[in-house]
């Protein structure tokens, strides 16, 4: 699988993603500037990393969702391409309408900078098949607006169609509805999640809890 990592002004976790992809894919991912209108040829996986794109002005991810490259990302997703959005990346995907719902300010109003424990809701996807269903793993959080929300109808649909990817397993610190930490698109090829699996992929980082996600993608 060939990966491209999008870079918007204010993104600050792209290098973490490069490292995670390098470790698992044994390839150098391409970094794509937001002003490009096309993805490089042969890209299978588009990654939207974390940070503060456009300073979180107006709403987190609101401006980035309209960057020139996003038209190509929407087309890529519509064609069945793989997309991974982490933190600000997840916010950009909801603002762009590629995933449903919205990420609100954390209910506690506190910026969360600590590890959380996530549960894997289904292990039969290209992102999660290196885990067992129900497995739990540590993932660092670094967000002020991770409170996933959608109307009841959408939340029920996500549950009913088994599109919840990860839930907060130990404590829901941001108030996210139904403890939702990440969701899939209906075709299971787009994943958005708030915590950062890419920050636990090497023993030097303190653990490899997040590595199975990247290993699973690399093996696809």
């Amino acid at each position, binding site marked *: 699988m060939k990966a491209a990592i999008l870079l918007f002004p204010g993104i600050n976790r792209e290098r973490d993603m490069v490292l995670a992809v390098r470790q698992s894919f044994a390839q150098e991912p391409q970094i794509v500037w937001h002003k490009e209108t096309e993805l490089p040829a042969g890209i299978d996986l588009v990654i939207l990393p974390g940070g503060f794109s456009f300073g979180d002005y*107006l*709403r987190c991810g*609101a401006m980035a969702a*309209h960057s020139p490259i996003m038209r190509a990302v929407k087309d890529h997703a519509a064609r069945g391409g793989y997309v991974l959005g982490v933190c600000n990346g997840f916010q950009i995907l*909801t*603002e762009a309408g590629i995933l*449903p*719902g*919205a990420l*609100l*300010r*954390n*209910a*506690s*109003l506190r910026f969360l900078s600590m590890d959380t424990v996530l549960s894997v809701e289904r292990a039969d996807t290209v992102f999660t098949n290196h885990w067992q269903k129900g497995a739990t793993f540590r993932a660092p959080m670094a967000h002020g607006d991770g*409170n996933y*929300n*959608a*109307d009841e109808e959408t939340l029920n649909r996500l549950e009913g169609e088994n599109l919840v990817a990860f839930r907060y397993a130990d404590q829901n610190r941001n*108030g996210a509805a139904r403890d939702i930490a990440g969701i899939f698109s209906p075709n299971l090829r787009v994943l958005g999640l708030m915590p950062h699996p890419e920050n636990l992929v090497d023993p030097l980082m303190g653990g490899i809890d997040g590595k199975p996600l990247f290993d699973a993608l690399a093996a696809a």
Partner: protein
Amino acid sequence: MKAVVTVMLKHGVLDPQGKAIGQALNHLGFDQVGEVRAGKIIELELTETDPAAAKVAAEDMARKLLANTVIESFKVEIAA
């Protein structure tokens, strides 16, 4: 022509910022303050000269960018 777009969280959506503001006001001695909701105002100077057209354009801008209609509602007022 100036368009003033007011964006608020929809009723029923948790507003922790509004809640924090309310608590701070209470701490300041304003006991009469109950629920507080905080939003944002965006002022747009438009080259449009027809108020009706300006309103339609501003509403389009609100739907497409200024408000996230999943969680926010908006209203547009046109000032001369």
